């Protein structure tokens, strides 16, 4: 159960515990939190929704990609769904590796891939508006507006 979609608040330590291994010298975590201000606009809260069964499969795929690229890596990812307030945790990614450089690189890879291929969406609620966000509005965009075929499947 290293890859989960959770309706409840995420316990960071329990995600980390899944990647503890005797040959890890480093564990990195990425904790995505709800930020109040984006380009001067004040977020009140977010709603995350997921195509849950497929999202878990895609998180598993990302984990396999990492274990193939970074030798000895172990990965665990939990993504929250539902309503999240400012500073609440949306996602926790834990990666353990023998050496520290890999732990940073592999963790970074995981969050970028989540933003490309995992069917999860957030709806931003501001004081006077609300909108489903797509990643065309984020800094990471699909090449040609959608994932390349090679990105989508293993």
């Amino acid at each position: 159960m290293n890859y989960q979609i959770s309706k409840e608040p995420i316990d960071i330590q329990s995600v980390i515990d899944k990647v503890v291994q005797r040959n890890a010298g480093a564990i990195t975590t990425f904790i995505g939190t709800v930020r109040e201000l984006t380009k001067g606009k004040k977020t009140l809260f977010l709603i995350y929704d997921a195509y849950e069964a497929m999202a878990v499969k895609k998180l598993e795929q990302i984990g396999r990609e990492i274990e193939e690229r970074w030798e000895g890596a172990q990965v665990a990812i939990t993504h929250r769904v539902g309503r999240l307030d400012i500073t609440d945790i949306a996602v926790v990614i834990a990666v353990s590796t023998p050496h520290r450089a890999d732990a940073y690189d592999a963790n970074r890879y995981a969050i970028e891939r989540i933003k490309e291929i995992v069917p999860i969406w957030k709806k931003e609620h501001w004081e006077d508006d609300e909108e489903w966000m797509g990643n065309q509005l984020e800094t990471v965009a699909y090449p040609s507006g959608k994932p390349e075929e090679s990105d989508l499947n293993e």
Partner: protein
Amino acid sequence: MNKVLFFAHLRDAVGEEFLKIDASGKTVAELKVELVRNYNLPKLDSVMTAVNEEFAQDDEVIQDGDEVAFIPPVSGG
């Protein structure tokens, strides 16, 4: 019959989490055209499709019983 799922702004547009449609024998592209004709669906060009929880190309032919999902640009993380 096929279960066709909608998410994010598509769900808001359709007003349903999913529809039951007989799409068997149609390609993904053909189903998209049909849905845009029958529902007020915005931006289907940038919407990906999943068949049975795996991304599918526009020329994939839908089989009876396949679960089809329309996947707007994702924004998790």
